[in-house]
């Protein structure tokens, strides 16, 4: 991989824009979808946008802290996904659906 050329010919702002776009796509998904599993996927997408941003900053600055942060985000995302899916399965058992729109029982 011709890595030098990336840093010299590509500005960091492109990565910022790319991850912003990714994050916003994820946000759009969170706002529009109602299937809990898809929502979870959209959140994963947002997390990945953040990861990309961290890696880009970290590489451009030559500082390893950002990459380590990404590592921890991945770790935590795995744990979170496990718990989240468990919750979704639990709900599916009760209501036979994963539609979060059904959950408007509690209103005030």
């Amino acid at each position, binding site marked *: 991989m011709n890595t030098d050329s990336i840093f010299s010919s590509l500005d*960091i702002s492109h990565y910022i824009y790319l991850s912003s776009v990714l994050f916003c796509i994820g946000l759009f998904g969170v706002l529009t979808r109602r299937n809990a599993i898809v929502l979870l996927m959209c*959140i994963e997408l947002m997390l990945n*946008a953040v990861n990309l941003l961290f890696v880009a*900053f970290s590489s451009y600055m030559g500082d390893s*802290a*950002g990459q380590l942060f990404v590592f921890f985000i991945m770790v935590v995302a795995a744990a979170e996904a496990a*718990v989240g899916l468990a919750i979704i399965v639990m709900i599916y058992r009760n209501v036979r659906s994963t539609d*979060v729109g059904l*959950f408007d029982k509690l209103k*005030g």
Partner: protein
Amino acid sequence: MKSLLIIFLGAIAVLFFGIKRPERKSLPIALLVLIAALVFIPLDWIAFIHKHVPDWQIKYVPTNMLSWDTPALAFSGVLILAAIFVLGLFSKNKLHGADLLGLMLFSVCGGLLMTSFSNLIMLFLGIECLSIPLYVLAGSRKSDLGSNEAAVKYFLLGSFSTAVFLLGCAFIYGGTGSLDLDSLARATNMLGHMGIKSQLVMAGLLILMVGMFFKIAAFPFHFWSPDVYDGSPNRATVFMATVVKIAAFAAFFRLFHYAFNDIKGWWAMTIAVVSAATILFGNIAALRQQSMKRTLAYSSVAHAGYMLMAILASPFDGFWALLVYLVAYAFSSLSIFFLLDRTSNGNEGFSFDNFNGFGRTNKFGSLVLVIGLFSMAGIPLTAGFAGKFGLFNSIIGTYPWLLVIALLGSAISIAYYFKVFKNAFFGGEQQGTKLELNLMDTVMLGLAVLVILTVGIWPTVITGLQIIPAP
């Protein structure tokens, strides 16, 4: 540090005990673990003041990931204390499996990380470590739809706000090149002094704040909290209302005062506006609720608005005000939620009617009720007043308009807090539900009332403690 280790090991021990033993046995172990952890807080405090940090700690906790300075210890102490009361008072529920207790202890671990982090990575891990067990706790009444809803809402909103929070962190990392609180403080100091407007840092701060507002349920981002509070089992609700709030505000305070104090002009106004909006909205919304649990949920939104003021204040004043307020809020919530929990027969119906004729049947209970509600409403000589007074006092010089709004909010809050008195005391001759308190309940409630009154009458028991000023 020791407290964290003790609680972590204790959690594992509780889980192991829970395999074979009857469930009831694991509660004393969990309580003992927490009390042991609490004992180490003052010891660490003294050690820190006299610079006697033990060698092993320096040796085996290699870098500045966690810093157990005195503010961190103070918040940790309150947090552990609140956790003890949650476990002790809400143990009569059917749900006291060892696994749930273990999860609560894990969650407390996360809270301790949030009070003492000195690196954004640790803050992130702390938030997650606090919330992941809570998602499970919120849904621990598995066949109850309300509990299910609470779990899924809490989970989705929680991970969503984490993503937002992380985006903020990423931008700030890009703008300053560091994740460490000290180097962040140096970087922002430079930015502040040189008058550079770093767009990356500004955008990052804004996004970070939004993430935090989600976590603490401040006004435009509060909508999840009443549903979650309402749907969760009572024990989980109280845990959220006390331990989680303490941890979240300790973290918020630490982050903004340690790292971003030199660029206060960039974020102070946002927080002031959000604080005002939260106070007004929380109180007005609470006024319209029929269910008492929801009323308390909205009132906790309003309380979050008050506590935001501490972030605006100068570090020293803000710290004490926040600490006193957190103590007041935690203990009064605990006592009120306890009474609500016990007066509701079964799981349903947390309306104000639970308290009908309460005052005629329960002398001690009504004392607790009155003191708890007074403290919530901020009537003098209760801890709530001391906390509110500290907060108001710390911002009066800079944000007089915020003070006016906060006072207005207090006046509104009277209307719904005192609604309970109507049911409890003014309701004619009818008899209310008789509380059945065992020895531990009585002692713990008594202690809670004692704390509220002591802090209220003589706040210097807290504010007189010696602290090393924040860096």
